[in-house]
């Protein structure tokens, strides 16, 4: 029994001492930045790169002299693809390590898990991944694409340039594909597509046997109308999906697949020769030909000491978010959350595709939308681009319950879900 | 012989008729018929694979026969019941390898074996009564283990485990006790004492003993059944059976 007490005691001491220890480090000579990306577990495959990207950005900034005359210090934790652990680690970053802002999360569920923490402890999260929208929170800045910055332009492109009339919406069964497909379905129907020309299919995470579904797609595509697949298939499931497409001979010229979750990183695990011509919609491609991007890629390859490392869209989102945060802190002259939150809105920084991205009052940013075709070397080639920048629309106009909602975090409205129909904050406001 | 069995059925304690069972084509029991009378002490011998243990498995409900009848106390069909039910009916069984609850004390082993209500809630709220205490003390004395009552069963010697198991069977108060090789691995002194113990036990109930040790069986001095290839080869006194040429051929050897 004495063992139990002493063990617990020792453990408590250990916890408290680490707390005190890291507390002692929280001296005033650095500004801390939290990095909350999974380094183990299922999401490590995507998120580890973002951790490296953040470390690189912080490193570069420190070479330029840091921020407000102080050095930036990265605090890395591993939430291990475990969603409740995300909340725990977020809390630890904010309340123990006293970081000024956190860059992190990939999956929607990890973001949902940490939201209350950032709200309660009043800190800042930058979320770099394309997501389903339907959210706008005071403490979160969404630097990835909302559905209107990715899905809708992609569908427009297919309709106009490939005259697609028949649609397969294939996705992994979780919130992002569900919502995106709901939005797309409503959008397609509003464009005159008949419901029987839309096939929706959901598969579990990590689905690896695509034989049946690919053959269903082929069958669906043989109805005499030009058919395309809009894929919101997530992460790991993509490689076997594309391998099956290639082997069953589904060619981009016949049934193009446009994906929203497949970037350079995912293609790195594939022989892309049979996939040439399949599409992806993003706000950034590594192949974008601008001096800023060339510089970024060069720094990245040098930082990772690996000539084969690729860059991708969420990395650019972190690049934009990080620079916006730097600018806002400089503008506010402090890292104090409320001041930075105010200063963030309207901040405009160069993105990597040759334009400027601006933080809008709804905490989403403006971005160009690029449609790229997969090339034999695992890169994308931009085949189409929105003429201007697209503002991220947090509450989709194509969902009945969210079309009346807007978000504006500027005083005096300061509301994430203002209903323009009832004129009240808080959803229906009734 | 069938006729005699037919007549004894209502009065006999255990009644097996034409029982057969096979495993993957191997006939472990082949139309075995066998009767035990109330109060009888019976020894069973037979070569390995003769079906001795399988017979016990069938009586205690562990194995279902492919065909044949098994009745207890004349009316109760044992082939339709499972182990726990059959045990509650009053058939106790001792395994070949001594099986006691090693992480319980000798006392707890007996307490668990005591013939009381065995449901979840009756055991949950069970309190040791003076009567039960006396009964356990009594059994402890019978199996000569009173001084070791607080020792863990795991720490008993092999012979002591055998005895403890017999004690547990006593606590169960069965009407029929099936004992599989009780003296295997015992010293001569222990063997002799075990024989006395079994005879004592058999005064108040029927006992069926399976054993290889002919000396031990001679010591018991009871009716002997010899099994071979899943059927009865010979039955009678030890001298009668051991002089049967078939038994000598099959089992005892020349």
């Amino acid at each position, binding site marked *: 029994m004495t063992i139990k007490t002493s063990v617990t005691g020792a453990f408590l001491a250990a916890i408290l001492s680490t707390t005190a220890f890291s507390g002692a480090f929280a001296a005033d000579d650095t500004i801390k930045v939290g990095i909350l990306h999974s380094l183990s577990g299922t999401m490590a495959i995507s998120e580890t790169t973002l951790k490296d990207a953040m470390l690189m950005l912080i490193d570069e900034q420190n070479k330029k002299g840091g921020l407000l005359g102080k050095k930036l210090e990265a605090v890395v934790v591993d939430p291990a693809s475990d969603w409740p652990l995300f909340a725990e680690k977020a809390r630890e970053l904010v309340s123990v390590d006293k970081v000024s802002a956190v860059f992190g999360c990939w999956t929607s569920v990890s973001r949902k898990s940490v939201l209350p923490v950032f709200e309660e402890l009043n800190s800042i999260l930058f979320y770099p991944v394309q997501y389903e929208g339907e959210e706008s929170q005071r403490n979160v800045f969404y630097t990835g694409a909302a559905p209107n910055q990715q899905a809708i332009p992609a569908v427009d492109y297919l309709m106009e340039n490939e005259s697609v009339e028949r649609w397969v919406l294939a996705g992994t069964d979780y919130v992002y594909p569900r919502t995106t497909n709901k939005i797309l379905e409503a959008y397609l129907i509003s464009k005159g597509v008949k419901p029987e020309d839309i096939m929706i299919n959901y598969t*579990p995470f990590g689905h690896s046997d695509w034989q049946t579904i690919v053959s269903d797609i082929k069958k669906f595509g043989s109805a005499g109308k030009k058919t395309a697949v809009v894929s919101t298939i997530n992460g790991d499931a993509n490689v076997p999906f594309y391998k099956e497409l290639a082997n069953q001979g589904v060619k981009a010229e016949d049934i193009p697949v446009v994906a929203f979750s497949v970037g350079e990183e995912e293609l790195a695990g594939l022989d892309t020769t049979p996939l040439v011509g399949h599409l992806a919609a993003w706000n950034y491609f590594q192949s974008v030909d601008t001096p800023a991007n060339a510089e970024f890629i060069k720094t990245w390859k040098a930082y990772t000491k690996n000539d084969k490392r690729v860059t991708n869209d969420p990395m650019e989102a972190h690049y934009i978010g990080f620079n916006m945060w730097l600018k806002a802190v400089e503008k506010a002259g402090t890292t104090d959350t409320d001041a930075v939150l105010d200063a963030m809105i309207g901040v405009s920084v160069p993105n990597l595709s040759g334009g400027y991205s601006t933080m809008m009052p709804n905490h989403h940013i403006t971005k160009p939308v690029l449609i790229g075709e997969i090339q034999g070397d695992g890169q994308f080639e931009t085949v189409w681009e929105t003429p201007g920048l697209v503002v991220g629309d947090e509450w989709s106009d194509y969902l009945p319950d969210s079309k009346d909602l807007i978000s504006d975090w500027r005083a005096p409205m300061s509301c994430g879900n203002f209903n323009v129909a009832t004129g009240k904050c808080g959803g229906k406001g009734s | 012989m069938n006729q005699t069995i037919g007549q004894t059925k209502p009065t006999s304690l255990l009644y097996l008729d034409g029982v057969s069972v096979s495993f993957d084509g191997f006939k472990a029991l082949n139309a075995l018929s066998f009767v035990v009378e109330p109060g009888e002490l019976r020894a069973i011998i037979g070569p390995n694979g003769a079906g001795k243990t399988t017979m016990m498995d069938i009586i205690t409900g562990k194995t279902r026969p492919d065909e044949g009848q098994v009745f207890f106390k004349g009316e109760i069909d044992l082939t339709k019941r499972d182990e726990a039910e059959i045990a509650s009916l009053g058939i106790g069984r001792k395994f070949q390898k001594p099986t006691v609850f090693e992480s319980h004390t000798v006392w707890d082993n007996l307490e668990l074996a005591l013939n009381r209500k065995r449901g979840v809630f009756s055991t949950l709220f069970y309190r040791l009564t003076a009567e039960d205490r006396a009964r356990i003390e009594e059994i402890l004395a019978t199996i000569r283990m009173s001084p070791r009552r607080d020792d863990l069963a795991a720490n008993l010697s092999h012979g002591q485990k055998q005895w403890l198991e017999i004690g547990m069977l006593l606590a169960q108060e069965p009407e029929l006790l099936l004992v599989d090789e009780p003296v295997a691995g015992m010293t001569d002194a222990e063997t002799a004492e075990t024989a006395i113990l079994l005879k004592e036990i058999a005064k108040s109930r029927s006992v069926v003993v399976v054993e290889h040790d002919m000396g031990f069986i001679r010591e018991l001095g009871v009716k002997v059944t010899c099994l071979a290839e899943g059927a009865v080869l010979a039955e009678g006194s030890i001298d009668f059976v051991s002089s049967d040429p078939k038994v000598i051929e099959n089992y005892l050897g020349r």
Partner: protein
Amino acid sequence: MYRILQILFVALCLVISAHVVGSRAAEGLGPLIDQLGSAKLSDMDDHITALAKTGDAKVIPVLEALGEGELYQRKSDGKVFLVKAQGADLLLVDPATGAGAGAAPKAAMQKVKVNNAVRRAVRSALGGLTLFSDDTRARLKAAQSMLQTPNADALEAIETAIAAERDGAVRQVLDEARAVTLLVSDRPEDQKRHAIALLAEGNGRNGLAVLTSALATADASLKPDIETAIARIEQTQAFWNAGQNVWYGLSLGSVLLLAAIGLAITFGVMGIINMAHGEMVMLGAYTTFLVQEVIRSSYPQLFDWSLAIALPLAFLVTGAVGLAIERGVIRFLYGRPLETLLATWGISLILQQSVRSIFGPTNREVGNPSWMSGAFELGGLTITWNRLWIIVFALAVFAALLFLLKRTSMGLKMRAVTQNRRIASSMGIRTPWVDALTFALGSGIAGMAGVALSQIDNVSPNLGQGYIIDSFMVVVFGGVGNLWGTLVGAFSLGILNKFLEPYAGAVLGKILVLVLIILFIQKKPRGLFALKGRAVEA
């Protein structure tokens, strides 16, 4: 109409006197090709048609290069070249003359942009140009592209080609292409009716596509014919679909079998709940990756042999890792199966993180050798080569293992040790050694499975986790300790899954299979092929 006459003319000329025409048109070719470099994507179609009109044989490599993305424009003067990568530089070839034009740094060149529309235009232009090629395969490809993108303008060219065609296979495709094309043309009704009848005979999806769209626009008199033809094709397809489902089930089953077969040794025969089994599969896949890396950089001509080289290596590597695990950890845990679960779970975490640290967390590229790419048609079935080979491979591994266990002295020792360690040991078998080798064998087989699975799945540190539960289900369902049970279990679960999937969807189908397994275990607590016997439990 003018255009097809042109194509036809050109085609005929090509057959008769390609050289004469070719050299005569060559002067005009250069500027036409250069136009490709500066054209907008939307205008490309016209330029391609113009090029095709020249009918010059030299156009073929240019168009091919355009489709492959190997056509570049020199930034300095806007001239377009065929290129081949050579290190950091590009080797230029003048498309009009076919002569080398030196090398240029990548930065000085800009790729001619293509998209799917351009590729489609290239494909149909090439189809017209190569329909009369000397190369049978080129003609077949051309005929297939005609079949896939029916274009009324090409009808006469196809008919000419049919008349000239000697090769049966090409002829068959051409006939189908003609029927399909005829339906979209303005030919008379009886010809169309004929075409419909021809299409109804086949089972191709192309026919179905054309018929369905023709149904909307066809004359009232033709509609009944089309409808019966569609019904007929659908009927044949329904028949083939069932066959296709069995095939998918077999192929899923073979994957399950591969994943489970190593576990059937370590878990089924030895009783070790080996949670690190999936990681052995993963290590096998990474071995394949390493082999291919070396081959790519040093011996590219050996690429088609990469899997053959990787197989024994993967077996050795994972076998060695298995040996180390057995000697280091598991040998202390015999007789405590549930504790092997905890230890091997720990080992699996360590292996996963090691691979993540060494190779990085992202997917690694493992390519398909050419003999494992693509598909072929068998009746109405589409059979992909990689799946076919995986089934063959799974069965081969199974047979080899069965042979090893049942017919060799090593196998005899393994069975002896796992059945009764003490007796085996007293008979002079070195049990620790046999244990180690058995475990190494199971691990090695898992590694070989990894080589095969690298062909259809991600090669990432998480690879193994996706298979571990399924593998256990297969072994338990089939009956622990029985290799045939694993075989039957794997294939029946695979086929069951694939028959449920069309009705219940992939997710629900999988849930149903799991529930069925749970229920099945209630019915037969020791699996499909349980070992029966007296075996007294403790």
